[in-house]
């Protein structure tokens, strides 16, 4: 097989083959993306549904992918390239299965590990994504080489064509993962499907490489396809069950996977235990009765005449049972994942079960309630934190009647709260205080907060509480006079009030600046990774300064070095675009989650739209590439567009939280993802072309791609772990503006170098 060079004579078969190969790279890209989504979801579920893990996951993915891309760039430009591509497809398929298998396996042995910190998350992500992402990264650069070998395109054009095809494939993969995954199949089943499809693509490449149809290959493909069609669904379910049975020693009663999370029900020693996203959620029949009685009866007791009650999630494990036993005119229970309702041991008689997002229910509903009780406690995730923000409290206040009370809780301690819990409770207390003039905190293993527009007397008047319970016809057995004397001791409440009365260091918790997430993250670190907790404490004081000064110092260094090596300015431009793109993509994903309440389904579609934007940007910029000067202008134009988008988002700000329909949310955030992706895509080919002109290399796709991915990695790690919770969304966008300004400045510093390049 000879290598075609520009100017060589082309046959129709060659043209057809290179076109088919472009389609192959698209399909492979799409399948890789679906695989990535499956792994991302399993990783998040493994670490208890905490979506901050996504940053580390995507960061690790990009890092390994960059290594793969660099390694792929070393494959020689000859007839062996298609063979390497075929092997990489096989490695992709096996890698996905190995990754999912490993995550499921880690999930099963986590009970014996019983500890995890940021390092563990990174190592687990690394182990899980390594086989798939390294081969996925190499697929791109090797794909560029195969395309170059099979076509007359120059390397930069091949790079752009393959990049575009991969991203179009990713868009399709994103749609597939959003619409099909977890609605119709388990993650294990999805991984099997993707692996099978990758093997079929492998056969396709082989057919192209050998220049003729191999009947044996086709037959093998068909047989495998038919066999898998029949087997893959039950096989996936069976594998999942086998692993769970192994972990829980045959105690598994059921396992459900939805677009919201995983629900596992165990039955052992006459006890039913429910886990949601690998985290203990509830136990029957002997639930935590003290907690459920405190939450329910204290909430009812602080209102003079409670008739209507709204319970927002957290009904499992006694709370709903206690509420349902009280005679109330209206009792509504809103829960995001309908599978939770199916886990209730018996359907409540007096309660209306409302499936849906609790936050959106509060924003949309016209009804008013005497008491609103929130069951969620831990604000470590954006998903839960959106119920503890000023915006949410304001909406909840609108839903309350004249003497209405909002009751919620946060992790606490009735012995010693520690720095982190104190700041966390302080933050929530002052956030509620922005909306409610009267906020009372009762310390305990979970701090109970009672918020109202009117003074709450009953907490300090136990006789009043008893009278109100009597009027309701209830006598909570555990909340005896002696117990109340201890639990609601005035000196203890005063002690705690004194501790939390100071303003929180990071300010109040809002949709746009979710500071409580930062404290949740800190608490998580406190348990599993104490040095990280100390670091985050310091970060709360120094984080913004450190990030800003580190960026400026580093940019100054690059600016200085780029006067000697001008290609550094291109790498900086594309690296910062990678960082900008990834940060903005994750920011929009979490912002979308705040508005809509959905993560997994949105994750696929929005990321795919981001990639579609990348593809569109790539095609558009290819049309404008003429000479070095125009490329340089394109890079500057990309930076200007990036800055403009970030500034517009800062301007629009919190008004986006008011969106209450799915269609509007998808439309708005989809468009924004498309635009953000467009910038990265727009800059990539021009950066590659400029780099070729500066470095006078034939093939630079690997090094430019790696700069893009390394920038993306940095964005994925610092975005969710530092910027979003510590800076908040507006300041993060401000930081991104600064990042792109440094890129613009460095490009401007080197203006003369680009204008003097040959070919202008």
């Amino acid at each position, binding site marked *: 097989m000879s290598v075609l060079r520009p100017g060589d004579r082309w046959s129709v078969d060659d043209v057809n083959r290179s076109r088919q190969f472009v389609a192959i790279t698209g399909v492979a890209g799409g399948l890789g993306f679906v695989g990535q989504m499956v792994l991302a979801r399993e990783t998040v579920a493994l670490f208890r549904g905490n979506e901050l893990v996504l940053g580390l996951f995507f960061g690790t993915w990009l890092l390994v992918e960059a290594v793969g891309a660099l390694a792929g760039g070393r494959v020689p430009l000859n007839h062996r390239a298609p063979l390497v591509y075929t092997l990489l497809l096989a490695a992709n398929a096996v890698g996905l299965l190995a990754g999912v298998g490993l995550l499921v396996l880690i999930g099963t042995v986590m009970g014996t590990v019983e500890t995890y910190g940021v390092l563990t998350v990174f190592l687990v992500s690394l182990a899980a994504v390594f086989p798939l992402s390294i081969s996925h990264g190499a697929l791109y650069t090797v794909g560029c080489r195969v395309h170059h070998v099979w076509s007359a395109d120059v390397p930069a054009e091949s790079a752009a064509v393959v990049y575009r095809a991969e991203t179009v494939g990713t868009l399709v993969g994103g749609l597939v993962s959003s619409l099909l995954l977890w609605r119709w199949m388990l993650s294990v089943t999805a991984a099997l499907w993707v692996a099978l499809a990758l093997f079929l693509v492998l056969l396709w490449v082989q057919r192209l490489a050998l220049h003729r149809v191999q009947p044996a290959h086709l037959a093998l493909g068909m047989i495998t396809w038919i066999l898998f069609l029949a087997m893959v669904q039950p096989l996936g379910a069976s594998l999942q069950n086998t692993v769970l049975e192994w972990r829980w020693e045959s105690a598994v009663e059921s396992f459900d996977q939805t677009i919201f999370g995983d629900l596992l029900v165990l039955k052992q020693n006459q006890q039913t235990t429910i886990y949601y996203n690998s985290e*203990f959620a509830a136990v029957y029949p002997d639930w935590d009765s003290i907690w459920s009685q405190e939450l329910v009866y204290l909430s009812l007791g602080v209102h003079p005449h409670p008739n209507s009650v709204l319970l927002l999630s957290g009904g499992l494990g006694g709370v709903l049972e206690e509420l349902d036993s009280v005679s109330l005119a209206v009792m509504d229970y809103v829960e995001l994942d309908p599978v939770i309702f199916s886990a209730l041991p018996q359907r409540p008689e007096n309660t209306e079960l409302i499936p849906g997002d609790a936050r959106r229910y509060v924003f949309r509903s016209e009804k008013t309630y005497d008491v609103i009780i929130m069951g969620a406690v831990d604000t470590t995730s954006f998903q839960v934190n959106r119920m503890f923000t000023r915006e949410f409290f304001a909406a909840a206040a609108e839903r309350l009647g004249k003497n209405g009370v909002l009751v919620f809780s946060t992790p606490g301690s*009735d*012995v010693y709260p520690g720095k982190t819990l104190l700041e966390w409770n302080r933050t929530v207390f002052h956030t509620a205080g922005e909306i409610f003039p009267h906020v009372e905190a009762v310390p305990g293993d979970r701090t109970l907060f009672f918020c109202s527009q009117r003074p709450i007397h009953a907490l300090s008047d136990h006789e009043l509480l008893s009278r109100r319970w009597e009027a309701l016809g209830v006598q909570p057995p555990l909340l005896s006079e002696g117990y109340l004397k201890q639990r609601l001791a005035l000196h203890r409440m005063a002690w705690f009030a004194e501790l939390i009365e100071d303003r929180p260091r990071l300010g109040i918790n809002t949709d746009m600046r979710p500071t409580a997430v930062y404290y949740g993250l800190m608490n998580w670190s406190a348990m599993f990774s104490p040095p990280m907790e100390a670091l985050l404490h310091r970060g709360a004081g120094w984080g913004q300064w450190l990030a800003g000064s580190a960026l400026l110092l580093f940019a100054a260094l690059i600016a200085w070095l780029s006067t000697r090596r001008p290609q550094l300015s291109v790498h900086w431009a594309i690296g910062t675009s990678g960082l900008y793109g990834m940060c903005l993509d994750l920011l929009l994903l979490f912002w979308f989650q705040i508005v809509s309440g959905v993560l997994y389904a949105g994750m696929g579609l929005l990321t795919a739209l981001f990639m579609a934007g990348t593809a569109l940007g790539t095609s558009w910029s290819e049309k404008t590439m003429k000479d070095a000067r125009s490329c340089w202008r394109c890079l500057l134009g990309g930076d200007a567009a990036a800055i403009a988008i970030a500034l517009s988002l800062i301007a629009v700000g919190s008004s986006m939280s008011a969106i209450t329909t799915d269609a509007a949310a998808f439309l708005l955030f989809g468009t924004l993802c498309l635009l953000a992706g467009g910038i990265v895509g727009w800059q990539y080919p021009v950066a590659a072309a400029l780099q070729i002109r500066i470095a006078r290399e034939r093939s630079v796709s690997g090094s430019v791609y790696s700069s893009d991915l390394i920038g993306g990695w940095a964005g994925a790690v610092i975005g969710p772990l530092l910027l979003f919770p510590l800076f908040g969304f507006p300041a993060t966008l401000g930081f991104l503006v600064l990042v792109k300004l440094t890129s613009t400045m460095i490009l401007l510093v080197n203006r003369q170098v680009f204008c003097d390049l040959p070919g202008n």
Partner: protein
Amino acid sequence: MREKGLTRRQLLKWMGVGLGALYGGRCAINLLTPQLPETLVEIPDEPEGRDTMFYRKVGKEQVVCEVCFRRCRLSDGQTGFCRNRVNRSGKLVSIVYGLPAAVHVDPIEKEPQYHFLPGTQILCMGTAGCNFRCQFCQNWRLSQRSLEEMAMVYDWPPETVLQEAQSRSVPSISFTYNEPTTFYEYMYDCAELMHQAGINTIFHTNGSMNREALETLLPYVSSVTVDLKGFTESFYDKLCHAELEPVLKSLQVIKRAGVWLEIVNLVIPDRNDDPNTVRDMSEWLVANLGADTPLHFSRFFPQYRLTELPPTPVTTLERCRDMAMQAGLHYVSIGNVPGHEYNSTFCPRCEERLVERYHFNVHRVWVEEGRCPFCGREIAGVWTM
């Protein structure tokens, strides 16, 4: 090209100016940082502490701490495993002396102490630090941290503890929340003072104190609660990074000293709930401490680093209790299951309820002058002040 860019000197200059401006801004922010509430004090940079009572010098500057089974060998400036005892130039100093981080008034049942003045209140204290590393620790924010990591501490020397106990009119004080062995000298000085003032001293321990230290302290102590966390060395090793043998020795020392003793066993599913182990433990308790030693089986809930396990099934706790009773123990209760029948205390002979408890609340005590009012059997414990 060089004249177009920054020179090295200019770069360094601008970096210096930038960093200076950042530091200045930060200092200004520090001035506006909120202060601690008045009742609490800042953590001292280098707490004065108090010389410890049980250690020996090895060589010029090394010391070996003798207060617990670990016997940490410390060079100058090193801190023990417990984070509380520091070698300062050849002297072992307790840095948490007089600096409790948690102070509360609790019902005595919370210890748990079911046979020692039931229904009374106790003044409880705890500092930072612990010599165990239990994966299921309830007070890990206190026990698994050092003094300098505390959010706040109270400046309470022993004299203040006495004043506070008297002002709150509590009959007993208790050293609890974290392991008191790690602040032995503070506990010892307080206990001596309380003894003189007629106030009881209780402590809740993991039982890891060495014999000499324990025997020196016990004359001033009225009651002890010991966590017997499991009954196998492997459990202690894997889940607590500790040893069982020293705990069993401590239990025997306390019993021989005639101090009232109660034992707690937190039953953790799949970790220490094996029926054979529970039977062995119960038989050992009967043989070595006597059948009248109260034993509390406590229900585990997901906690600290052990959050993946389910709560202990109540049937498991009931099975443990049955086995302990069959082994011959007279007073076996079930804790952390509010409202359970065996929150209460029953007469071992006539099986009548003697102390009606609901969780930590005592509703009624029938015991009269240390005897069952229904059959007259003597009921072990301390029932009157």
